[in-house]
């Protein structure tokens, strides 16, 4: 279907059609918001890379600023962050 293999995938999608054929593609996980997204070469979608977390980000504006997801979780659980 499309070339989507990535190094060190964060997840894998397996689609099985009505004839039993399977299509597999990989997902990467944003280090700032925990979301998974498909990594499609040549898609033109802008993603990011955090040099402090050393990981890819989803490209959403809210994820451009560095705050590791684990830190966000801790702050949220302590009531010091309104939303994840």
């Amino acid at each position, binding site marked *: 279907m499309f070339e989507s293999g990535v190094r060190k995938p964060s997840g894998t999608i397996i*689609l*099985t*059609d*009505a004839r039993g054929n399977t299509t597999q593609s990989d*997902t990467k996980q944003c280090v700032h918001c925990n*979301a*998974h997204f498909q990594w499609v070469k040549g898609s033109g979608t802008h993603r990011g890379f955090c040099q402090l977390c050393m990981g890819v980000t989803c490209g959403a504006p809210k994820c451009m600023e560095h705050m590791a997801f684990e830190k966000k979780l801790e702050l949220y659980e302590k009531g010091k962050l309104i*939303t994840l």
Partner: protein
Amino acid sequence: MARKYGITGNCVNTASATLPLANIIGTAAVRTMLYDITLGSDATPADNSASYKIQRETTVGTWGGSGGAAITPQALDPADPSAVTTANQGVCSAGPTLTSGAFLLSWAQNMRATFRWVAAPGSELKIPATASNGLALMSLVVGGSAVNMNFCFLIEE
């Protein structure tokens, strides 16, 4: 070692931005992690499609609509105790509070196909250890008719 549980159910995938098809609710005791999703249909095959998303939520909602029911997660290892995580399926009569824009996984699917997503170890979708927080399975757009969909979530806690 984390305890693993299975959550299975079904629901008609009526399109809605406010009423989920199913949800998983954590507690303040543990960080529940979703690591496997399987979604397919048991309805008569036809070319109906829909787009699905996993979205964060901060309240449980009221699952009193048609087909609405609580689901008890089943331990994959029979020696494990009951899960503290809870789940619901069906149609909400009052939707939960969904976190705007917090979509953790998105995909589109024809009902003839079966979708499965598996997280790599350490890359699971995490629910904060906060009461009533969870993840909701949303069907935002339906192409054709709404049909019954069957889901299976595998979680760790």
